[in-house]
């Protein structure tokens, strides 16, 4: 039978894949994509706990996470477009004007 641990393992694997993408990608949009994978891994955890230890809070907060992820993606894309307009390039290695 498939139990809670299987879902937690799946979420851990997905989170690690997303982390690898965040660490190795250089294109800002690709980093945002990997970030969405990590959001989804957390969401699977919330819904899985809500299912196996019946409690509505998991489902409630998974929907909050979806809303926050949508907000994050919107602002992220706006930042990417702004950086692109200034530098003609969205490689994160080049966006260093705030680095000291």
């Amino acid at each position, binding site marked *: 039978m498939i139990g809670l641990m299987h879902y937690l393992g799946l979420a851990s694997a997905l989170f690690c894949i997303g982390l690898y993408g965040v660490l190795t990608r250089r294109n800002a949009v690709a980093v945002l994509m990997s970030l*969405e994978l990590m959001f989804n891994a957390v969401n699977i955890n919330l819904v899985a706990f809500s299912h196996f230890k019946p409690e509505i809070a998991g489902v409630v907060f998974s929907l909050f996470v979806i809303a926050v992820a949508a907000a994050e993606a919107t602002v992220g894309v706006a930042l990417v*477009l702004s950086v692109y307009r200034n530098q003609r390039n969205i490689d994160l290695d080049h966006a260093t004007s705030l680095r000291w």
Partner: protein
Amino acid sequence: MSPFLFYFLAGVVLIPALAVVLSENLFHAGLSLIVSFLGIAAIYVTLSAPFVAGMQVLVYAGAIAVLLLFAFMLTHDIMKPLQKATRGQQVSALLACVLLAGAMGRVLAASGWELSLVSDSEGASLTELGLAYLTRYLVPFELISILLLMTLIGAVVIARKEEHEPTTEFEQLSETAEEIS
């Protein structure tokens, strides 16, 4: 739920996820992202949360993935090759991920949760969910609406094109020179 179905869905989630982080072609990565999101929606259905699955399809697969694809197509210069991480960065990132996976595996093993803990819960009905949002979780619910409004305004302000007027003749000349070059 049958193990076969779970492992099939896990494959549908994880293989496109690997394609998202490894693919050379960012457009293919974006399309794989949509497949991965749909697989996760199916996972939510097996967890008896059909409403979350519906929101996953609408918001993630429908809105966020398409938004990211649009951002990619608006900014990427097709002729330029994708800049990649160096070999050393790849190895250290892989090491970090493997260490994190090991740590999470240790925590799961030490948690004492039964591997075969099964549930026959029907999941929360839509009525219960709505009541929870409007009673116990009313304050976070309202905060989310404020957050979405702030995001709307913030995204417009950040992405807006700044119209700056060249003030001096020198600036006008240098802009013309830039355009020529």
